[in-house]
């Protein structure tokens, strides 16, 4: 089974689906939705097979495939996945059907075409899978850039509020980062003697003089820091998250932003170990600032979707310190956080989207006591909130704990300050829940007929798998950590750091 070309098929499958859905006439919107859902489920099934075929004790990169593309430049269609990429691909495969189901009625009221929306979602899945599956740096860059296009149209055409502004800001921020990366990619390509093969690039990067390597690192890092986003490159995310349709916003923060942290792990750390160590203090400072600053801003938000976007920036701060602490625990925690954050914040965005769709407004002040009208929905929101503040028993707790404990062993100060972020997280989540679903009933809510409808069967089917996964991974994260651990260790080996007290702490925290 492992001879099956998983990654290329997985990449191309959604593209074919997107084309098929795009050609369904507008009048047959239901058919388009069903095809899109079915297609994303096929991708999910294939991903599960791939997960099973992945050998934990095997090579770092598996499912290697390579086809020549532009031989003159040493470019090839090379796919390969390590444990980190594998868990991200799995997350993508899970989130897309959920989001497609959650977005079922998003376009019904709009003048825009429903098949176009679902075709855009599938083409977005294509670029997402491609970016994580690519093992050729050129190919990675190609996916890194073209993923902007479907998301740009999703935000711009199907969003709400200041959608045009948000779409352009989103596109330009990402493009600016991408172009910095392009300069570094070209520099690396020339140094390596016209190849994009990851191993050869790593070999060539090792021969660079310190200063050049630092500049090249910076080109990559800025691109990924904007994408992630880390403070101070984050300002596009609240606008995009606030304007995008809720399902798309879940994908935006749940999957797409992970490209940034994934890129740092795969490219910055492995290619430029010395520069990574040199820049680590700066990156840690930015990450910690991000945790505190974004949490404070989240507390002050009156718009639910923007609030969730800010919480997400704070969470990326945790992932950032996890990566740059350079310990196996923190690294494993950071990757696990990437998965759990996708599930938790994805769920939060989707649930908030359900509330917003009912109320017709995303302002916190338009709610109040909604729990009396829609108790189940309020309950799910409460659960999603708790998961996202990393309550023990939910999956994010494990990852946040791993990150903090792993960071504490090498960088005590940062870990202590970051712990404050947990307190602030409790503040923004609980206060948000208190103002929307608890307390006295806002009389305006009773006048909105949709607010009296609790979760439908479809909506229950949307939230159920995410809730289940959050609970299961909260109590038993081993299947995921087992896959992540070797890849993180290999990455840290590239960086050339060693854990202070490796085995003992790992045994306690990882299991």
């Amino acid at each position, binding site marked *: 089974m492992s001879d099956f070309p998983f990654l290329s098929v997985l990449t191309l499958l959604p593209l074919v689906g997107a084309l098929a859905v795009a050609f369904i006439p507008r009048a047959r919107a239901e058919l388009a939705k069903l095809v899109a859902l079915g297609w994303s489920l096929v991708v999910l099934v294939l991903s599960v097979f791939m997960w099973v075929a992945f050998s934990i004790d095997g090579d770092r990169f598996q499912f290697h495939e390579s086809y020549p593309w532009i031989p*003159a430049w040493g470019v090839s269609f090379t796919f390969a996945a390590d444990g980190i990429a594998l868990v991200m691909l799995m997350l993508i495969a899970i989130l897309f059907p959920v989001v497609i189901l959650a977005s079922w009625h998003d376009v019904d009221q709009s003048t825009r075409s429903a098949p176009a929306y679902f075709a855009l979602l599938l083409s977005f899945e294509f670029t997402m899978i491609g970016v994580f599956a690519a093992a050729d740096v050129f190919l990675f860059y190609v996916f890194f*850039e*073209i993923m902007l296009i479907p998301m740009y149209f999703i935000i711009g055409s199907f969003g709400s509020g200041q959608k*045009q502004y948000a779409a*352009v800001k989103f596109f330009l921020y990402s493009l*600016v980062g991408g*172009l910095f990366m*392009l300069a570094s990619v*070209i520099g690396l*390509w020339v140094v390596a003697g016209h190849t994009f093969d990851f191993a050869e690039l790593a070999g060539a990067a090792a021969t660079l003089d310190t200063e050049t390597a630092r500049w090249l690192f910076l080109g990559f890092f800025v691109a990924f820091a904007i994408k992630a986003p880390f403070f101070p490159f984050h300002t596009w995310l609240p606008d995009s998250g606030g304007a995008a349709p809720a399902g798309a916003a879940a994908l935006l923060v749940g999957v797409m932003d992970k490209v940034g942290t994934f890129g740092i792990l795969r490219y910055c750390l492995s290619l430029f170990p010395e520069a990574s160590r040199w820049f680590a203090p700066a990156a840690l400072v930015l990450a910690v600032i991000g945790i505190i600053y974004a949490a404070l801003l989240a507390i002050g938000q009156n718009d639910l979707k923007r609030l969730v976007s800010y919480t997400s920036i704070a969470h990326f701060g945790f992932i950032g310190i996890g990566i740059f602490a350079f310990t196996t625990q923190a690294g494993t925690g950071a990757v696990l956080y990437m998965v759990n954050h996708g599930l938790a914040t994805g769920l939060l965005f989707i649930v908030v989207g359900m509330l917003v769709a009912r109320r017709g407004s995303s302002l916190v002040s338009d709610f109040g006591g909604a729990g009396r009208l829609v108790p189940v929905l309020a309950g799910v929101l409460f659960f999603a909130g708790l998961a996202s503040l990393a309550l023990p028993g939910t999956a994010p707790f494990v990852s946040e704990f791993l990150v903090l404990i792993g960071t504490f062993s090498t960088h005590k100060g940062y870990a202590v300050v970051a712990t404050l972020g947990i307190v602030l997280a409790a503040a923004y989540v609980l206060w948000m829940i208190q103002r929307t679903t608890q307390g006295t009933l806002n009389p305006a809510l009773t006048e909105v007929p949709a607010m009296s409808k609790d979760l439908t069967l479809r909506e229950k089917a949307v939230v159920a798998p995410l809730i289940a996964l959050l609970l299961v991974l909260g109590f038993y994260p081993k299947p995921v950590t087992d896959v992540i651990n070797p890849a993180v260790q290999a990455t840290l080996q590239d960086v050339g750091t060693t854990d202070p007290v490796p085995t003992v702490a790992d045994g306690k925290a990882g299991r």
Partner: protein
Amino acid sequence: MGEVQLPPIDYGALSPMLILFAAACLGILTEVVVPRRLRNGVQLGLAMIAVVAALVMVVIERNTRTITIGGAVAVDGPTLFLQGAILVLGAVSLMLIGERSIEKGGAFVAQAAVTVGSQQDQQQAAGRPGATEVYPLSVFALGGMLLFVAANDLLTMFVALEVFSLPLYLLCALARRRRLLSQEAALKYFLLGSYASAFFLFGVAFVYGFAGGIQLDVVHEAVADPQRPQILLYAGLALVAIGLLFKAALAPFHVWTPDVYQGAPTPITAFMAACTKVAAFGALLRILYVAFDGVRWDFQPVLGVIAVLTMFVGAVLAVTQTDLKRLLAYSSIANAGYLMVGVLALNEEGLSGTMFYLVAYGFSVLAAFAIISLVRDADGEATHLSRWAGIGRKSPLLAGVFTFILLTFAGIPMTSGFTSKFAVFGAAVEGGQTWLVIFGVISSMLLAFPYLRVVVLMWLSEPGESTPAVSIPGFLTSAVLGLGVLVTVALGVVPSPLIDLTREASQFVR
């Protein structure tokens, strides 16, 4: 006095140019002989046959590497590749020029000499078929361009410059609509172009004084000799370069571009944006790589500053434009800057990358102007940006194609815009010009904004009252659009064949 020795002439190598010049002369005779109602078809057919025949000859001669006709013309890899590029792009431009179904009588006026606004003018505005002289004029221009990229001495280059410039000045004045703007553009282009030619000629005189010859290999040898008066060399090189930079529209010699691009009939704008660019950069490459490469350390920083200036002038001013043709004009200026980055790599990758860029950009820009010729109202083309609001709702196919072309210009991967930028930037880093690449990347960020603004306008804005209808493209325009998009996709997804071709062709003969 012995007998005059005639230099050996390789007619095969010269045949593409000879065919075009002969066809252009035939075209002028056609104006006299063929009745008016048949003229358009005959002229278009004649021009197309000539261009295709010349292209066939280029392909047949593809392995020729020679200097012929007394050292005046060099036929080598770059010459043949660039000639082929000019001919292919020229054939596509001719299709745009030949389009008669979008507007009654075509994009060209019947008699340009008629006073604007007079009674006679109103009569011809009502739909008298446009002038058919445009075909021989275009063919003359194409022939001049072929000679321009092949010229191996500076005087031949000057003659070629004039041969392709003079028809272009005329063609610019022939717009059917907004004739005053068109005539102003032509006059401006003519005056500034004449200055540039004068600079060029003056520079040739200096170089002759310096080297004692005008052939590029003579100059090359003289440059290596430190005993000669360097002041003549630098003055000559500077003046010759000014002449060429003007044609290539590099800052600060770019000011004519927006006015001329806006005023000229759109098919001619497309023709200039695609073919003139190839010719100008072809000559620039030859002069810098063949004649003056000995002083590369002296001109590289100066031309580098010009390249950076061009990229930023083009990008920044494109942001402020409200007219699409002017926006594309500034975008073409910025693209000239990127091309210059490739030229300044001064290595084989730079040569092949620049040639790749020229072909890729030519096809995209032809498609872009073809689209502009389709969006029109009662007064002709509606080029003001505000008129394009919401056009994606009315005609999604056209807006989709235009979006794709704009993303190409912005350099998004899987389009030729990305591969060509990669080619020139990679060559420049290889050639030790990393600073140019960094500025190039930064200006690309700026330049993305105006393109994106148009995309937003087309798709995300609501259509207004004044959003014009989109004409159904005729067969010729459809073919141009199809070809432009096809080549842009192909060069983005499978660029290998063309890259290999440019690499094989990246050796000048000296």
